[in-house]
Structure formats: structure tokens, C-alpha cells
């Protein structure tokens, strides 16, 4: 008997950035296959390809041994072929009844063209029984609890004769007890030969319900194993990738051309005689204790505050006016430490925030709303900003997504040198990884560089190609992260040691 589903060598990139690299995935009948990975690892992209929301670049998909023709593949075809997706936010019509929702796709119609209500009802009862959901088919869906709605979705999938059910974090919104019920159902539908792709972060659940695990990291498949043969410790390691640091450094392609240079910058009481240069393709780390003058330096470079002496060159051309405006025109971007107070227009739509820099640079009077929308859409997808609409006001986004919007705004304006001041402060661990990845992707393109400012020593050690240490307003050391320990770096930050900085 052929496998229920086989996805082979799936590749997918968005705008030249690969998000899935040769991923293969196999699902057997009656198997719960867990898809694991940090945010941005490519899980959802893989799922969306399977459900027809995205097209793939290359690779093959076989359903029960038959290759699916991917040229015209779309969500309708996917659902007709028996691939059902149960998303975190349910795709139910809240104002309709349970029965109506169940029959929504295939409303049974009498010969006269009227809806056959008894049949709808019978159909519904049959479906509800499959998931042992005891609700009145005439209740409105919006009156159901979260878990009931979820069960209902599963029921709908089952009556539509789904062979594969994809569950995207199904337990995120329901209580522990409801989770138990869900697991019971899952076990039951497994016996009917349905394959389940289960996405979750909760290792505990995976133990309980999963049969097989596939782990994705940075779009690559880093392991597939059965649940009882793995050690959860190992899973965590694979997911977070302890080697992520070396990965990043190997992947990066340092070019020799200088992209940014500042010479003898001084501002009384803030920093003194700061000179450094950054190369094309480089992530230049700047660290130091709180109060060492890092933020002041960044603000002065970008022209937010004034400095008394010194010169700034971008790609060898001196920037004469020390204002944010001039820096933006020269291709420099700045992401301030306090996102909400100086990085974002909180009650403006995401779209306006993403496109503001390119509008600032443009000289037209009017603007083309459609182009704006397209540009915003592109970056929302590319940076995987989690939002339901590009009109959503930024204040409703999470910290990580807000930071992505700021990144998007500079990416969109094709900024070449980006100054990031504590870009991951107040951002949770998962989103942090995504931000690192985005920064990493940014410098991969020719002609771009990053100044990464952070007080978090391990962060700097992980991401930077070269580290400048600032102590009381002066750059006292230039270090390379290879072989450097956190302790050593700390001694530099405390000003206990210094090494001669570059001019």
C-alpha cells in the first residue's frame, strides 16, 4: 500500500529568499505526524503548499501514490482531494447554525431547488457523532466554545471525506481538559486511516499524541524520527539549533568593499573620537555596558542628535547634512531602541508604516494606493508578519511583529546600511530567531551592511562578524567572535582590557 502522502524535495523561495530547501515529508495512513520548528522555520509554508495556498518552486507531491498535478493546484482542488486544514482561527461562519456550517459546501437541495432541511439535519447529526460532539445542530456557531468549534471543524473535515487533516496548533486556545477530548478524537480518527499533520510547540503533547516527528529549521529538514526513539532533549537541540551560530557565519559572504565609515565622531559627554567602518555583507556588532554611549552614538550617526566633530561616509561619499533626512537619502536606516515611541506610527495601518520611508524619499505629489498595497503585501509575506490585513493598525501587533514592520519599512525603501539598536529587547525567544534570520538575509544581498547594537553579549557573539566594544564613550576594542567567550567579552566591556581599534 502506497504512503498516504509523499512530498519530495520541496523548494520554495519568496523573492529570492529560500524558505524551504529540499524538504521531504511522508505521511502514512493512520499516522499522526508532528511538524516541529521555531517560528519561521518553514512549517506553515510547507502546510500552505500542501493546502494549495502557495505554489511550489520545485518538488513533487504524491497522494496515495499518484502524483498531484501542481500546475493548477489550488485550495479548492486540495479540499476536493481530501486535504483539510484546521487553522487556529476557525473558518466557520459564526452567524449560521452548526448544521448549516456542516452542510455549507454541499447544501443538499431538493428537486424544487429548495434546501432540504431534514437532510441537512440528519447529515449534521451524523457528522457530530463522528467527533462525539454533543451540541444541538441548531445552535449558532458563535455560541460554541473554542474547543467545540474546533471539533466542529474536524467533523466537517471528516464528512467531506478528508484523508489528511492538518492541525495548526490546535491546543493553543483550549483548556487542558478539552485537549484530552481532542486527543481522544484524534486517536479515534487515526483508526479510520486518516493521516494527521500536527503542528505544535508543546513537547509534552507531541509525546502523547504523535507517532513521527519531522523537524524543520531555517527551511531545512533537520531530522525525521519516530516519537519513541527520540530524546526530547535532542529535539530541542535540533529545533533551536545550537549550531545556529556557526551556520550563520559560514553562510555569510563577506565582501571587501566598504559600505559605511565614520571618522573621529565626537560629542561632548556622550562619546569621543569614534571611528569605524563596516564592510559590504557584514554584521558589525557594537556592544558595551548600559550607559556606555552606544545609543547616543547611533542617534548621532543617524542625525537624531548632533555631534560636534567628525565625518560620515556612505559608500565613500561624505554625508554632509547630519539629519535623519540626509541619512535616509544616503541609504542608511535606523531602528531605534524604543520601538513604540520613535519607531512606529502606532495607530496607522501596517501598510502606511511599511511604505513611509519610500514615500519620504519620493518626490511625487500623489501616491498610488494599489502599488502601496502590493508593496506592503509583499513584505508582510516575505517577513511573515502575522496579521489578518494590511490595514490593521500597528498597535495591535505583538512586539516581534512590530519589529518586523520596522524592518520591512527599511527593506522596502532599499536601505543599504541598517543601524539596529537593541532590536530584540522585549521580544520573545521565538521571534528573536526570526529577527536574526531577517537581518542575516538582509546582508546576504550585495551592497548591504548592518550595525548591530546590543548589550546582550551572547546575542552579539552569535550574530556579529566583528564586534566593537564601547566603554564610556570610546571604542576600546575590536574583536572577532570566533573563540571569544562571553566572559572575555565582558572583561572588555568592563573596560578592564582593550585592544587597538581600527582607525
Amino acid at each position, binding site marked *: 500500500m502506497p504512503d498516504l502522502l509523499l512530498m519530495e524535495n520541496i523548494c520554495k523561495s519568496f523573492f529570492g529568499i529560500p524558505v524551504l530547501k529540499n524538504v521531504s515529508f511522508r505521511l502514512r495512513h493512520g499516522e499522526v505526524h508532528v511538524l516541529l520548528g521555531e517560528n519561521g522555520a518553514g512549517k506553515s509554508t510547507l502546510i500552505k503548499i500542501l493546502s494549495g495556498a502557495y505554489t511550489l518552486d520545485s518538488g513533487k507531491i504524491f497522494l496515495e501514490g499518484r502524483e498531484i498535478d501542481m500546475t493548477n493546484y489550488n485550495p479548492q482542488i486540495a479540499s476536493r482531494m481530501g486535504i483539510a486544514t484546521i487553522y487556529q482561527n476557525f473558518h466557520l461562519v459564526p452567524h449560521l447554525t452548526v448544521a448549516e456550517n456542516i452542510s455549507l459546501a454541499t447544501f443538499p437541495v431538493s428537486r424544487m431547488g429548495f434546501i432540504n432541511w431534514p437532510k441537512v439535519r440528519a447529515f449534521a447529526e451524523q457528522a457530530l457523532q463522528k467527533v462525539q460532539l454533543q451540541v444541538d445542530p441548531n445552535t449558532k456557531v458563535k455560541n460554541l466554545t473554542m474547543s467545540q468549534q474546533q471539533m466542529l471543524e474536524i467533523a466537517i473535515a471528516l464528512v467531506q471525506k478528508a484523508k489528511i487533516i492538518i492541525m495548526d496548533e490546535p491546543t493553543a486556545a483550549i483548556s487542558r481538559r478539552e485537549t484530552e477530548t481532542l486527543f481522544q478524537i484524534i486517536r479515534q480518527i487515526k483508526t479510520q486511516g486518516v493521516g494527521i499533520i500536527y503542528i505544535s510547540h508543546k*513537547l509534552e503533547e507531541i509525546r502523547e499524541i504523535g507517532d513521527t516527528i519531522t523537524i524543520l529549521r531555517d527551511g531545512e529538514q533537520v531530522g525525521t524520527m519516530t516519537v519513541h526513539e527520540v530524546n*526530547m*532533549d535532542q529535539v530541542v537541540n535540533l529545533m533551536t539549533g545550537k549550531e545556529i551560530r556557526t551556520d550563520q557565519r559560514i553562510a555569510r559572504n563577506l565582501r571587501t568593499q566598504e559600505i559605511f565609515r565614520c571618522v573621529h565622531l565626537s560629542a561632548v559627554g556622550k562619546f569621543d573620537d569614534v571611528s569605524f567602518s563596516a564592510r559590504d555583507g557584514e554584521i558589525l556588532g557594537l556592544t558595551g555596558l548600559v550607559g556606555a554611549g552606544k545609543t547616543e552614538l547611533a542617534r548621532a550617526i543617524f542625525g537624531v542628535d548632533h555631534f560636534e566633530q567628525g565625518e560620515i561616509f556612505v559608500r565613500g561619499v561624505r554625508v554632509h547634512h547630519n539629519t535623519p533626512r540626509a541619512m535616509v537619502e544616503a541609504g542608511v536606516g535606523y531602528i531605534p531602541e524604543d520601538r513604540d515611541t520613535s519607531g512606529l506610527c502606532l495607530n496607522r495601518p501596517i501598510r502606511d508604516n511599511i511604505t513611509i520611508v519610500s514615500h519620504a524619499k519620493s518626490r511625487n505629489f500623489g501616491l498610488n494606493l494599489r502599488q502601496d498595497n502590493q508593496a506592503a503585501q509583499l513584505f508582510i509575506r516575505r517577513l511573515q508578519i502575522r496579521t489578518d490585513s494590511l490595514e490593521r493598525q500597528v498597535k495591535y501587533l505583538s512586539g516581534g511583529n512590530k519589529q518586523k514592520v520596522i524592518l520591512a519599512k527599511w527593506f522596502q525603501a532599499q536601505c543599504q546600511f541598517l543601524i539596529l539598536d537593541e532590536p530584540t529587547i522585549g521580544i520573545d525567544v521565538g521571534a528573536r530567531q526570526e529577527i536574526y534570520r531577517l537581518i542575516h538575509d538582509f546582508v546576504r544581498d550585495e551592497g548591504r551592511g548592518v550595525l548591530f547594537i546590543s548589550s546582550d553579549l551572547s546575542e552579539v557573539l552569535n550574530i556579529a562578524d566583528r564586534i566593537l566594544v564601547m566603554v564610556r564613550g570610546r571604542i576600546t576594542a575590536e574583536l572577532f567572535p570566533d573563540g571569544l567567550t562571553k566572559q572575555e567579552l565582558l572583561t572588555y566591556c568592563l573596560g*578592564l*582590557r582593550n585592544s587597538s581599534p581600527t582607525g
Partner: protein
Amino acid sequence: MSYLEMQGIIKSFSGVRVLNEVNFSLNRGEVVALLGQNGAGKSTLIKILSGYYNKDGGKILINGEEVHFHAPSDSLARGIRVIYQELELFPELSVAENIFMGDLPTKRFAGIPIRQKEEIEHRAQELLELLGEQIDPAIPVKKLSVSEKQVVEIARALAKKANIIVMDEPTATLSQKEVEKLFGIIRKLREQDVGIIYITHRLEEVFTISNRVVVLRDGKNAGFFDTQDTSWQELVQAMIGRSLEELYPRRTSTLREDRIMLRVDNLDIPGLLEKTSFELHEGEILGIFGLVGSGINELALGLFGALPIRGKIEMNGQTISIHSPAMAKNLGFGLIPADRKQEGIIPELSVMHNITMASLNNYKKRGFLRRADEKTCVCEWVDKLKIRLHSIDQPIKSLSGGNQQKVVLARWLATQSKILIASEPTQGVDVGTRVDIYNIFDNLAKNGLGIIVLSSDLPEVLALSDNILVLEGGNIVGRFTKGEADEQTILYLAMGGKEKVAN
């Protein structure tokens, strides 16, 4: 017997000992580096040596003979010369005039007769040549570079027949090349049989130039070393009192098992926190660890009445209800909020007003504030917590982050809080102050306060707490006593893992 001997020097400011039986010695022709963190007492020691401060106890011997310095002039007369960071030169006068400033007869002060001028210029030239410097003694000092000014200061010291020269961070404003030149001069001075006390932060310099090292810490001697026989690790350990691996202080207090101060039973904050229960004993530091977004912040705010809570709270055996911060305050709670800028300080107001903001009623008499009482109390706390400031009337926004945090801490100590809730107490605080805060916590616990530290800094929680709770997704997922907690398990739980990691 050395040329200069300082024995058992004691100095207190408003009851706080800043120097505690410090010994120091110096021979002629020797460079002794005086090393210590900010606030270790270096500058106080120097100011006693130079006669600016009177010592409270101890002896100063020069050439075996006890001396008493009542004013700077006494010290100068003994050939002790201090070269401060801010140079004390007269910019309009010539180099030669500056060098011989004190020796110029007063009548020549306004217009110097030409022959005299030539004479002093000649003598100045000789002195400068002795130091290997080419500076025209006739030009005004304001035309010199910083390092040249320093040379003039040194020449002035030599002209005064100084036997001991104290250099207070002489390289702070110099470039690498100028530093080398300075070292050359210091070597020459050594040949002239001058004893040099060299104050610095930089270990590299210590190894280059000094013969011996004296380390101060918290106003006490922390070590005497011969430069040849020591390593920088050893010096660092002496300076910060612990090896770099453990920046955290050892707890000296223990909780009292029998005295439960606070019992929290099934605390709920709808949507944010579920069924949280714990106990706090007298003298206990309870650490609550959680990642960003785990609910630690909300727990802190909820306990302090700033978020609506449900559940039972008992304090000293009596059931209490907390509906507002004002109520919490009256019950003896104090809160150090996580977001210092937004929730902690009132930026425009003075340090004093910020400290007394929560305890205004303590200084009230017939409805009016007794500002003298207020001031006394503030000064007391400023000294006790070693808050570094110029004046208690200075606006709090001009302090460093660490000192601002101490002010917030002082605010609650001034209200005589019994239970201190500290949310991320060391976020954005520099290393030195961090250690101070830990020590303060330890001291408070010793005095019977109950302290709840909610933090996302795991080493901090591990080092500080008697008991540790782990919070994840609004639930307590782990409880540990000090001994049984290990970093890996806690982190694993905090990230949503459910079972103990193997190994």
C-alpha cells in the same frame, strides 16, 4: 619601611564608611597602580593624601615621620602632587608661567620683566627636556593638545620638587600613541626617584607600567600584588570580589520557616494568570522565573493591586484584599516595576521627591510636609543605597539607569515596606549597580523583609532566591528550593516543556 606609608586609613561620610582601614605604601622610584571599581574608594584615598579631606582615623607617614594634612597646601609642601583628569592649568598663560605658577613673585604677576621671563622659560625648557618633550615654553597653554597639557602638569609637579605624583586616570583622554609617550615620561620620572601612584581602570596599562598593584574594593584593601607575579584574572577577581564566573553575591541570610508572611491561594488574573499559589516567608527571597510574556509582570502588578485579581491572599495569617496600589502600599507592599521609565520614575521631579513620593504621609504634621524630616530620610537612604548623585534636588532623569533603580528601591524602603515585589529589578542596570542591588536585597531579607523577585534573568534568580517558581503561560509549572534547582530544567519548564530532562 617605604617612603610613603598610609596605615589603617578610615573615612566616613554621613555615617557611611567609604574607607575602612586602608593600607597603602609607596617607595621612591616606584610606580604603584591603584585599582578598583568606581566607588571603591580610590579617589577618597587620594583626596586624603592630598589634604582635601581629613581622615577619621589612621596614620600617614612620610619617610617614617607622621604627618598631618589639614589643607592641600600641607600636602603640597611635602612634595605630593596630584594630576587630575580635569587639568588645572591657566589656558591664557604661557607654558613656562604655568609651570612656575606658585613660585612667581606676585609683583611680576601682571607684567613679567623680560629677563625673568627668559629665565623661567629657560628653566621650563630644561624641565621639559628632562621629560623628553619638545614644547615651546612661551606659547599659551590653550594651544596645546590634551597630552601636552598633561606633560606641563607633570613638569609643574617636578618644578615643585614633587616626590610623589598621583595620576588619576591619565590615559582616559589620550590616544594610543600619546599613551605610549606618557609611559615614556613615567619611566623617566621613575629614574628621577619620583614615586608614582597610578590610578586606572585598565589592566593592560597596569601591566605595562606599574611595579606593584594595590586593589581596593568597597573601601577596603582587596589585595596587594607584585605586577610580575600576578595575572589579570587574579586582579579582576580582587576588584569585583568574585571571579567573573559568578558575578552574583552569596546570600548571607536565611528565611524563617515558621513565619509565613504571605500566602497566595489560587490567584487568577483573567486571561493572564491562572491559579497561582505560593507562600512567602519572613526573610525569604522568592524568585519567580519566566520568559517574556509568561505573566511574571502581570503577577507583580496583580499582587500590587494594579490589575484586577481573584483569589485568596493571606498576610500574616489574615485574609486581605488588594484592589488598588494605594491599598497594597498601606498593607506594606512595595513594587519595583519592570518598566522603570514608564512605570517607575517621574522623570521631571527631583530625586528627593521621587523617593518620598510613596511615603509623604510620614513627614506630615498638621497637614503640612516637614521638609527637614523628608530631607533627612532621603539623605539616609541615598547614603545607605550608595546612590550616586550630585544633589538630591537633581531631576531623576539625569541619573543613570542603575541609580534610578536604586531611587525606586529607596522609595519603598522609605515607606517601610514589609514585602517587596521586584519585577526585573536589574534590567538595564550596569554590572556594578546590579551587584549593589543584590546585596541590598540580601540585607533586606536579613532584616526580615519578604522579597519577591520576578525576573527573566535566570542566573540572577538562581543566585538570589531561597525558593524558585517557574511561570509559563500564566501557570506555575515548577517549584524548586535553592539546592535542587538547575538551570537546564528551569529553562526547559519555562519554555513549555512538561517533564524533567533526562540527565
